[in-house]
């Protein structure tokens, strides 16, 4: 069964660090996600783009929680885009959505109107 380890590509958009994620988010994603997060410093907002992510499991949730904990400490607002309806539901059920802003599809930068 093909697993795709996580790729995290970063770029700057205005004052925000955009992290484009590709692959699976499981326990192995910690390093890649952590490194991407570290590209910018305290106070810099982070936008996680999940558009290229096909699979998130519970250990992946734990990794995201880890990032959120650091972001809270660093006063860096976190938002998310590109989540499928299924994963949006998972973010809600786990209350991840209370600690990051999930952008509605039409508000995503570059989204078609």
């Amino acid at each position, binding site marked *: *069964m*093909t*697993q795709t380890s996580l790729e995290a590509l970063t770029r700057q958009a205005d004052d925000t660090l955009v992290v484009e994620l590709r692959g699976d988010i499981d326990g192995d994603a910690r390093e890649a996600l952590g490194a991407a997060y570290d590209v910018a410093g305290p106070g810099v907002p982070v936008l996680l783009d999940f558009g290229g992510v096909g*699979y998130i*499991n*519970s*250990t992946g*949730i*734990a*990794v995201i*929680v*880890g990032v*959120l*904990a650091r972001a*809270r400490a660093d006063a860096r607002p976190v938002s998310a885009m590109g989540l499928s*309806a*299924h994963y949006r*539901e*998972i973010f809600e*059920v*786990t*209350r*991840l959505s*209370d*600690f990051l802003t999930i952008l509605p599809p039409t508000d995503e930068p570059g989204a078609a109107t």
Partner: protein
Amino acid sequence: MAVTPRASVRRVVWRRSERTVPAPLAAEPQPQELLAGEEPFEIAPNDPLVAYLQAASGAIDLTRLDLDSPALQEMRAAGITLAIPLIANGELVGILNVGPRLSDQDYSADDHRLLEQLAAHAAPAVRVGQLVREQQVEIQARGRMEQELAVARLIQQNFLPKELPDLPGWQLAALYRPARAVGGDFYDVIELPEGRLGLVIGDVTDKGVPAAMVMAATRSVLRASAARLHEPGAVLARVNDSVCPDIPENMFVTCFYAVLDPASGALRYANAGHNVPLLHTPSGPAELRATGMPLGLMPGMSYEEKETVIDAGTTVLLYSDGLVEAHDARREMYGSARTASVLAGAPASSQSVIDELIAGLDRFADPAAEQEDDITLLVLRRRGDGALADFKLQSAPGNEREAMSRVAAAVDGIGLSPERIERLKTATAEATMNAMEHGNRYDPDLYVSIAVRSDGRRVSVSIVDHGGDRDMPMAPVPDIEEKLAGRQSPRGWGLFLIKSMVDAMHQESDGSRHTVVLEMTLEGGSDDADKP
């Protein structure tokens, strides 16, 4: 018809053949042809004069003709002296009647020749005129019949179900193919209280608008009775009493009516002379036989009621005469044996039962013959029980992905919405990860066994590992705030996620094996909870 210069005119009505409709001819006199006070008279087709004229080669002097013919008497009385037959294509199409010359002289040979030439020109023209008239009449008649058929078809279609209900664990499919001369077939699926379903198939003898109207009335009374009287025998008795007073003589209605309890599979049924429904069960063919007279013959009839249980994997076929009585070029009938053998081939779905029956029928039937009778098929199938998938996976990180995709494939098409399939996939992956990590400690020699089962109402996924000798995992409910604050491990989401995704989850240990069972209720393909 009569034409004459310089002589009195009489209109003579003569029916050339039965096909000629007399009324239009007599009803459209040209004013200049009829003098006041003169009525047309008819020549009987078997009058000897007709044969005489048919055989004649020219003008006939009626004054000298000796024939026992009432027509001859009438024509003489009307003052006709000369009759010139109009022959077209060897057939007598009319008579040119001439009265006496105003000069009172006899008609000369030249006069005869003139009249015969006139007749020779007139005859084909008259024939064409007659053909045009006949064609117009026929078009009118056919137009009326087409209109009647269109009306009958409209009535019929209005009284057929627009769509069939979705029943979790069951499949329903129907086909209605009317013959050109629309017959009186009907079927219905009636939603009853407590989730039960009424299934109707019937056939009114005769065709056209009267049959369609009886069908509409029968169906309506049946629906109304079904809602109140749940017992099929009582319903048919009530419908029979209601239909008897008004149904035209020699018309009757065959009808099979059954009430299904989808939760238990119990089917209670009664039959008023309709074709015996055929079944294919996991243990072989069966029939639903109950005795009863067709509706509309005699009031006060009672109808035998029977009950059976439709087990998982069983197909029930209700059908009309149009199927079994269809015949091939050798006049052999399709028959119920052939029908039963299509069923025995165990087509996978109700729709494929219909497709295979119709394909078989189209191959069998005489291609030159038009479909004589309406064909109606109503197929009910209870989805198969038992294993949808059974497999083992090695305990290795990442194998939960294969568990996910194999479970998704196993539940395809059984009645879970895409959203619920996604949830089941996530729950399966989490449970499999737990089994591999905690139950089997990622020992490559230890496998996780996964089975997917459905009983038609619920699908269950069981995941078995070798950790039955340990305490079952009972993680505390994850508190994200505690985790963000660093007071709880960021992990521990698995069990919580599983329970959030599925309708029910239970686990048990027997000392060596640990089993987790995930359950999702089948909802017929749509999930109201997902609608915004």
